[in-house]
């Protein structure tokens, strides 16, 4: 909005909050929310801004109209004395003079007759039965005992939390929070995940403004920082402990090679536990990294855990330098010394092992040339070290550059072609292309005539768009014709070509159907499936038609 909020409220800039409120009250009566919603919204917008930028209150007139506030007491026992008028429970009494008596002495017939004597509020509430509040230190001791992650029963904390009387009293709650945060910042205390999330939910530790609240409560900035760091660590540890204890895996759909290495969710958790134990000592890291599958698995685990719990969690749980080592060993990063060194080492070790094995098989221990052979072997190993390093570097670079580039090209091509997969464009093009391509292919010319090139091009497009079935079409087309004709005689080629091409075209039709109808994701699948099969049937009919009448049309 372009208007000036102070002008709208007709106040000088920086007027005190009380004046802002009074002016708002006056204007509100003229712009009531149910009568003038537009005006009310503008007024509200201006009021909120003015209130946020209100100046300091003038000290001259205190709030004398204010009723004496009921003092906030922490110990409930002292509340007994005055406040609300004594009343018998369950009876119906006339309300204050504002709202006159409304019912005429009836009551629901299921309620028993009211207690005759007039009981004071204190006795009725049984306030003397209320517990005296304990000190925050004692409460926090109990809290930590109930929140111990080593406890087996996960419900213990919830039960304790519900029953603790100090947590109901707001003043005591804050004292408990201060004590608890102080202890967390001082030492590395562990909380179970249930306890942490219950406390977080209750106190709002992860909400915006938490640090501001601590600072406003009088905590020093250094302590606030330590507290925030301690809470992060506590959460990370609690999450990890819970993940290790529960049944589900990080990956929902386990790929097959995963099974080969890790087995299942239990194997995954055992691996995580081992990595967590290894974070202090790097002893076995290099040895395990010599197997590329292990590098892949560890990186996938880190990736999955980062997605679930964040990079800071991974750094803390598994050690920052361990994480860095496994990252650098992964082929997805730019080629570096760790990767090249590991590849070269693998190659060399393999070569040496093979050489030893071969030497052992070929030569007997009594052979006089054994020593010479072994010396030659090791010389060869050292000499080939250079080859190994060069080869490893080249291979790494090829993988790093080639694989993502290829994926990028594929994505770009797909996106470019997608807009042309609209059925209004694609079906005519497809039909014409099919007819023309098959017609050309039926022409009598050697292997690489234009017809075959056209069909090969169609198959390549299908392959690039991701249809594995189109690969078989290409192969059948470019290389199979001669073989089939030699084996089964003329004419069978065309049938075979049609049969091989059909999966590719069916796949293309499926893409069109998905684009237009959203099947198989659409809710009304039946209609969409009918459309799909209609498209497939149309294409097949066109193919058959061109096979039958094409030669006639071209006069062959």
């Amino acid at each position, binding site marked *: 909005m372009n208007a000036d909020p102070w002008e709208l409220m007709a106040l000088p800039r920086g007027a005190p909050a009380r004046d802002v409120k009074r002016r708002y009250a006056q204007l509100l009566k003229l712009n009531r929310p149910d009568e003038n919603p537009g005006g009310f919204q503008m007024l509200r917008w201006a009021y909120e801004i003015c209130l946020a930028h209100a100046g300091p209150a003038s000290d001259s007139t205190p709030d004398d109209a204010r*009723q004496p506030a009921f003092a906030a007491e*922490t110990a409930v026992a002292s*509340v007994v004395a005055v406040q609300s008028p004594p009343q018998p*429970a369950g009876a119906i009494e006339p309300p204050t003079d504002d709202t006159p008596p*409304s019912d005429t002495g009836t009551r629901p017939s299921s309620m028993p007759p009211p207690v005759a004597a007039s009981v004071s509020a204190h006795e009725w509430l049984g306030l003397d039965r209320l517990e005296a509040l304990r000190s925050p230190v004692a409460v926090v001791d109990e809290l930590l005992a109930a929140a111990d992650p080593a406890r087996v029963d996960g419900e213990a904390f919830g039960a304790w939390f519900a*029953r603790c009387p100090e947590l*109901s009293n707001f003043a005591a709650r804050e004292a408990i929070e201060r004590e608890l945060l102080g202890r967390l910042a001082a030492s590395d205390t562990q909380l179970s995940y249930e306890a942490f999330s219950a406390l977080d939910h209750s106190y709002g530790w992860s*909400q915006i403004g938490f640090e501001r609240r601590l600072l406003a409560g009088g905590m020093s900035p250094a302590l606030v920082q330590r507290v925030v760091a301690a809470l992060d660590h506590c959460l990370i540890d609690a999450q990890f402990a819970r993940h290790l204890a529960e049944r589900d895996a990080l990956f929902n759909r386990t790929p097959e090679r995963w099974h080969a290495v890790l087995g299942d969710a239990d194997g995954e958790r055992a691996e995580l536990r081992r990595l967590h134990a290894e974070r202090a000592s790097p002893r076995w890291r290099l040895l395990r990294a010599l197997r590329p599958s292990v590098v892949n698995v560890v990186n996938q685990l880190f990736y999955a855990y980062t997605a679930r719990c964040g990079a800071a969690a991974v750094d803390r749980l598994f050690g920052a330098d361990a994480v860095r080592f496994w990252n650098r060993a992964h082929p997805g990063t730019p080629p570096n010394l760790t990767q090249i060194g590991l590849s070269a080492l693998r190659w060399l070790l393999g070569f040496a092992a093979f050489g030893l094995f071969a030497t052992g098989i070929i030569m007997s221990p009594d052979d006089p040339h054994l020593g010479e052979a072994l010396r030659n072997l090791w010389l060869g190993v050292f000499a080939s070290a250079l080859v190994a390093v060069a080869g490893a570097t080249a291979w790494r670079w090829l993988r790093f550059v080639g694989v993502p580039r290829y994926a990028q090209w594929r994505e770009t091509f797909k996106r470019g072609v997608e807009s042309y997969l609209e059925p209004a464009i694609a079906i005519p093009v497809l039909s014409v292309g099919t007819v023309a391509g098959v017609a050309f292919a039926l022409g009598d010319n050697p292997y690489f005539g234009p017809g075959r090139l056209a069909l090969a091009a169609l198959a390549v497009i299908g392959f690039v768009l991701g249809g594995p079935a189109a690969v078989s079409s290409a192969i059948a087309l470019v290389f199979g014709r001669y073989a089939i004709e030699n084996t089964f005689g003329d004419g069978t080629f065309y049938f075979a070509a049609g049969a091989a091409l059909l999966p590719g075209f069916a796949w293309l039709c499926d893409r069109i159907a998905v684009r237009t109808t959203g099947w198989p994701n659409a809710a009304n699948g039946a209609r969409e499936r009918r459309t799909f099969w209609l498209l497939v049937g149309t294409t097949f009919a066109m193919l058959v038609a061109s096979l039958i009448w094409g030669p006639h049309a071209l006069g062959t």
Partner: protein
Amino acid sequence: MIVGIDLGTTHSLIGVWTADGARLVPNALGEVLTPSVVGVGVDGNLLVGRAAFERLAAQPARTASTFKRYMGSARETRLGDRAFRPEELSALVLRALVADAEAHTGEKATEAVISVPAYFSDAQRKATRNAGEIAGIRVERLINEPTAAALAYGLQAQNAESKFLVFDLGGGTFDVSILETFAGVMEVHASAGDNFLGGEDFVDLLVKTALDDLHVAPPPAPADAAALRARIERVKCQLTNQASLAVPLTISGKEYEWNITEARFESLAAPLLARMRAPVERALRDSRTRPDELLQIVLVGGASRMPMIGRMVARMFGRLPLRHINPDQTVALGACVMAGMKARHEAFSEVVMTDVCPYTLGVETSRVDENQRQHDGLFSPLIERNTVIPASRVSRYNPLRDFQPVLKLRVFQGESPRVANNVFLGELEVPLPRRTSAENPVDVRFTYDVNGLLDVEAHVVATGAMHQLVIEQNPGLMTPDEIRARLAALAELKVHPREHQANLAVLARAERLYEENVGPLRQALTEHIHAFNAELATQEPQRIERARKRFAEFLDHVESQSAF
């Protein structure tokens, strides 16, 4: 005449604003509280209110209660040979209430102000308004129950700035509101609550405790289970006055004796009480209020009569709450005050009230991050919770892909950053022109009206087309055609006339007492039932009314003589 109605989970009330202030209207039995119960009689006609309530224990399969908890959903209750939606059941109750008001005041009721829990969602509010329409009365204003309670206590009459917390524990819902009043303005700062926490849950807890203590399985016959539940409900009310009780219970024909103390009830109810902490904390946090800034705590709602509630509030805030108005009637009195304000009675020209919406509203979006990974199911909030209503906010969204034909806007309400944890309100489809994603933004405007009902507007920037779209595909909501159809269908239903309902109520109560008692009381009851039936046969209204009053007094006497 504008009436104020408190449509509660267990009881409902109706009243009007007169020159002397808010007045609640008694029903045909002379009671101000009408149970929110609907039942089907032996002849297939419908019973509403006390008559149906008395039959709740005897015929649970033919009686429906606590249907307020199903408002906003499509759950149908089968009564007799017809299935009723919760809006229709509420409409039957509303019709009965309005008939009572018209009979008492002699004027026709044109409009109603109905109270809803502050934490009711958009679908639940719309269902309440639809219930009013089906009942044949115009509902232009819904008022939040804690706000109504504040009005009833006259909190708006404070001269200086003061903050209050209203703690409303009804039969089925729990609401907390923090209000501030100054110079005749009453502002709600924050609202929070739990739509599934109320007195009924305490009764469930007691029933479970009784069965566990006596080592008895829950009675399989629904009639027995309902009778047990009604008994335990009376035990709960008794525990308000007495610290310890010895209760004789009859379960599946066998007699038991069960001892329960108020202290034990409180310790068993600790998880329920702990559930009340979170909304209070949330409301205090959202309104950025410290507990010592509150001038008063106001206790509202029938279930707040339990001393453990008062004790918990005293523990929370270190002071005693305000509850000198009958907690059952507070909300209804507030609704009458609101009705008076709406009719612009002179007393209210100086008072204005503003309210807030309790939920965050937004749409589902997807995001593509720098690694080309697409994250689905993210919640993008448009209107934050505790925004003063009416409010209107606009946000711009782009379609995910180029050349998308349709933009699907899924509207959610809730506080979680993932839509899977939020509540789905409805879906809108906006047709888009063929443009790339960056050239095709859509402006989505959410407007909350003063009743907290949502209106959604989508503006396609490229074509300039405005789509004022109705939220559909929410199974809990009814379309206007459906409402009209149900209104017509309801008019054809046979409901016992108002006066006859009172007679049926008294007879049903007598039957219940007959089943519960033994020996000479039974004989006396039989004689009185015969006598009353004879009076009914005379068909003279005055005689019947006198006979009914005498009968009711006799039944009160019987009940006070009952086993406990």
